[in-house]
């Protein structure tokens, strides 16, 4: 093992890190000074037990790890996608205790004790979830990057309609909730598709919901 071996990769990493520090500007440094007394010098890892797709997974992670990164980087469940990492695109949507959430905006350490379902847990090749099969049948995608999030979102969204959760387009807050195209469109607005496959996604959801055409 050599003592000094500056590979190209390492040099690039060092440059990128320095660039990041400059881009953060002087203000981040001031915020840092204000809290320096209490901040851990090195990230102390924490022991986390995640229950994903019916299996328990014990892992030591940095507390900063989002649920999304834990799923992808630690459990290698790469069906869940990182799009914006800001909760704006919906590509990272998973189901926690039956409810759809953006996995980029929750920490893995906060999800202990919750039952997480990812696209891999909904169905597998040869044994697809009805929503997965409907997306295939109706061609509800082009590039496919947003698709796992769309499908997880759609599955949990139909449960919200069944449970009577109102939406922005629900006419009567106290009446019977009808599964309509307008309802599905509004409720799926947290999932962006840059290919614009919305009309086919709509057809897939309507079929699973049993909406007559």
């Amino acid at each position, binding site marked *: 093992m050599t003592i000094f071996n500056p590979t190209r990769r390492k040099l690039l990493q060092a440059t990128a890190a320095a660039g990041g520090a400059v881009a953060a500007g002087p203000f981040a440094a001031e915020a840092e000074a204000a809290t320096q007394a209490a901040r851990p010098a090195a990230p102390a890892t924490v022991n986390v037990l995640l229950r994903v797709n019916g299996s328990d997974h014990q892992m030591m992670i940095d507390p900063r790890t989002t649920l999304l990164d834990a799923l992808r980087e630690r459990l290698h469940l790469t069906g869940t996608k990182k799009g914006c990492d800001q*909760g704006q695109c*919906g590509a990272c949507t998973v189901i926690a205790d039956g409810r759809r959430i953006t996995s980029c905006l929750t920490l893995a350490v906060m999800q202990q004790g919750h039952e997480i379902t990812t696209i891999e847990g909904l169905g597998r090749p040869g044994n697809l979830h009805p929503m997965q099969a409907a997306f295939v049948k109706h061609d509800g995608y082009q590039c496919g990057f947003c698709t796992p999030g769309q499908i997880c979102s759609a599955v949990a969204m139909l449960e919200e309609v069944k449970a009577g959760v109102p939406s922005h387009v629900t006419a009567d807050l106290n009446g019977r909730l009808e599964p309509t195209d307008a309802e599905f469109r*509004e409720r799926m607005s947290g999932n962006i598709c840059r290919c614009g496959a919305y009309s086919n996604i709509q057809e897939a959801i309507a079929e699973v919901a049993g909406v007559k055409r």
Partner: protein
Amino acid sequence: MKSFTYERARTPAGAASAVGRTKGAKFIAGGTNLLDLMKLEIETPAHLIDVNDLGLDRIEPTPEGGLKIGALVRNTDLAANARVRRDYGVLARALVAGASGQLRNQATTAGNLLQRTRCPYFYDTNQPCNKRRPGSGCSAINGFSRQHAIVGTSEACIATHPSDMAVAMRALDASVETIRPNGSARVIPIADFHKLPGNTPHIENTLDTGELITAVTLPKPVGGTHLYRKVRDRASYAFALVSVAAIVQRDGTGRVAMGGVAHKPWRVEAAERALPRGAKAAAAELLAGARTTDQNAFKVSLAERALASVLAEAKG
């Protein structure tokens, strides 16, 4: 993201005292806004206290005939609650007008009140911003200001409060219940909860360090027709340019609060006295003293028209 340590609190008093005694500590509940800001290092807590186990997730009737909403009640659950849908329709409508289905499943009642502005200059750490770095200046006043405030602004800040829920809560005269690090509880009327920017736009509400919101209480229902109209650049999943929360009675009297126009939910008594005389009279009182930029001057007429539309709908 800056490193931090993490703990789960077991009691509200324990959570408040832990934040009170730990430098740089913050509560985390839904995390939808805090984590976003931590990734950008706009928020840099050294310690996070997870309050999700505090049991503050119930919606209960109060002895006065109102409703007590636990701080951790998710936005979805609050909008779906039968009493809220029946007696506080303006609140259910405002909730489902905000964010996306996923975010409403995560976001909490207390967190919604405490969310930070979405001013792009607040989010860009390379730009001066008096809210992010007091004294550095405001980039929005001479910048892109289409989304920004037109009333209650200052030379230091023209940011808006982004919440829809809080606008309905303001129209409903909600109260914010808290516990402080020393264990004492207090009740803050929502009218006094959020602050105008003045010279201290970084101080956004009246909470003390370590003070934890435990519940939001709604008074007895006031009847009337409940409406929430949100005008935005997309049909869904966008922040308001202007929003109107209204409770209108049969005789034309009522309550009106506006979102998207100020640093806090905007409600003016004189505007409500003028309400029976119509939208033009009420909007003139609501927006009296408005200070606009070239880019957000349209909000004055948009607000009046949104109010006119709501009053017309209330008449049926």
